[in-house]
């Protein structure tokens, strides 16, 4: 199976070296060839299963609950005055 590895890396927001691209191209192809075996099964009438214990529409009261403080929420970042620092998004305009 042929994979456009640069396109997938872009979708995944994953910086890959050329070496990695070659490596994963080969490995992913062989894994995908293996899992394509599922096509042996006819599943046209079969429902999908995404929740195995059968719970549906789990809701809670629409009530504000205690949460992290601003200081805690930003404690793991290179924060500035309790705010997250991100690259400017309008720099190119």
């Amino acid at each position, binding site marked *: 199976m042929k994979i456009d590895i640069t396109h997938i890396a872009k979708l995944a927001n994953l910086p890959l070296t050329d070496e990695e691209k070659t490596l994963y191209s080969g490995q992913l192809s062989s894994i995908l060839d293996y899992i394509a075996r599922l096509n042996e099964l006819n599943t046209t009438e079969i429902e*999908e299963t995404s929740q195995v214990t059968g*719970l549906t529409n789990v809701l809670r009261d629409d009530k504000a609950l205690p949460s992290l403080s601003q200081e805690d929420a930003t404690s793991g970042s290179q924060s500035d005055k309790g705010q*997250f620092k991100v690259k400017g998004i309008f720099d190119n305009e």
Partner: protein
Amino acid sequence: MNNLTIVEARKKLDNKEVSSLELTQYFLGEIKKKNDHLNAFITISEKEALSMAEQADEKLKNGDSTPLLGIPLALKDIYMTKGVRTTAASKVLESYIPQYDGTAVMLLKKAGAVILGKTNLDAWAHGSSGENSDFGPTKNPYNTEYVPGGSSSGSPVAVASEMALAASGTDTGGSIRLPASFCNVVGLKPTYGRVSRYGVIAMASSLDSIGHFTKTVEDNALYLQVTAGKYTMDATSPPIDVPNYTQNLSQGVKGLKIGVPKEYFIDGLDPRIKNMIDKTLKWYEDQGAEIIEISLPHTSYAIEVYYIIQTAEVSSNLARYDGIRFGNTRASFGPEAKRRIMLGTYVLSAGYYDAFYKKAMQVRTLLKNDFEEAFKKVDVMITPASPTLPWKLGEKTSDPLSMYLSDILTVHANLVGIPGLSVPIGFLEGLPVGMQILGPHFSEEKLYQVGYAFEQSHPFWKERPKNE
């Protein structure tokens, strides 16, 4: 102190033969002696552990006695612990300090357990051997040239080598049951949702199960009693009552219907392991259980379904690590995480979603139907936990597909959400072998009864490693 169980430690604590502080100091000492060699712990939280032990001793003095009060435990380093570094064994989180405790951690603390530290794992729980850790591989204490199994690699080693009385793990495709069988300990993968996933770093959200390792089945039941239940922060934890897991432990297996799924006895199964399973089944038959051959016709597709659903959910869950709010940048992901992110992104991408992801979700329904049919005929099933013995460190690291296939007997339970218990059944070439007991959703109590019966007359857990 040698080879203590939680049950025995409980008695000693209640009779004031030993204090929680002494117990904690003993285990911290064992960790310091053995960890350089075995690499089971990423972080040892000595200061916090000693303070928790002192608090437990205060409660013990006041006459409190709950099952885990004062009991020293270890946590897989994927459980969020407030104020104590949590790495998921990845360079991305090498200096990450959580701001809150996961629900399971909160419950263990509330029960008075002492947390000794955070154990090693395959980074992000991606792996079957422990070798994908960015903090170096953990060694199997029964033979340090061999892998302990993974992805929960440090936790079973900590229990087997007397570095903790019990330890937590997570099981997304076998990450508790496989290493438990490789390290001669009891490991439970509970029913999906039985233990809240909140505050445990997510791998594949529809498959992740929050379980643990102990020396004995009874210890395992005591631990689950603390962590199981419905907690609102995990919407998939169901409103189903938690039974008393130890109440009927010694009920025996007379009249019990044990299914043996023929598809689990695959070509790659080591014939000596098959022989040990046969002997185990014979023993159950002699105790009055009925052994029934059953069929789960779609079994051979489980690993394919698993590697589509799991990688898709991994790629989605790991998308949050952007290096902005916490942690390092995405360039810090190791090779296995990158491989899974790429594969998962591919199977979810436009044009391939129907062919892979949707198809896998449909086959998942067929797998679920197989089990529902089978559990109309039997109460539980017994299978090997692993098709092979532990392998040598480095043996499978260059071939991801062969590593993936080591989960072939365990991924099935995650895809259909049922519980599985791994219990030691002996040794081959000095390396441990385990059986896997499977049951319907929320049948943990039954699994414990079945495991306990065997363990009482086959106490393999007493054979501790010699060359740790």
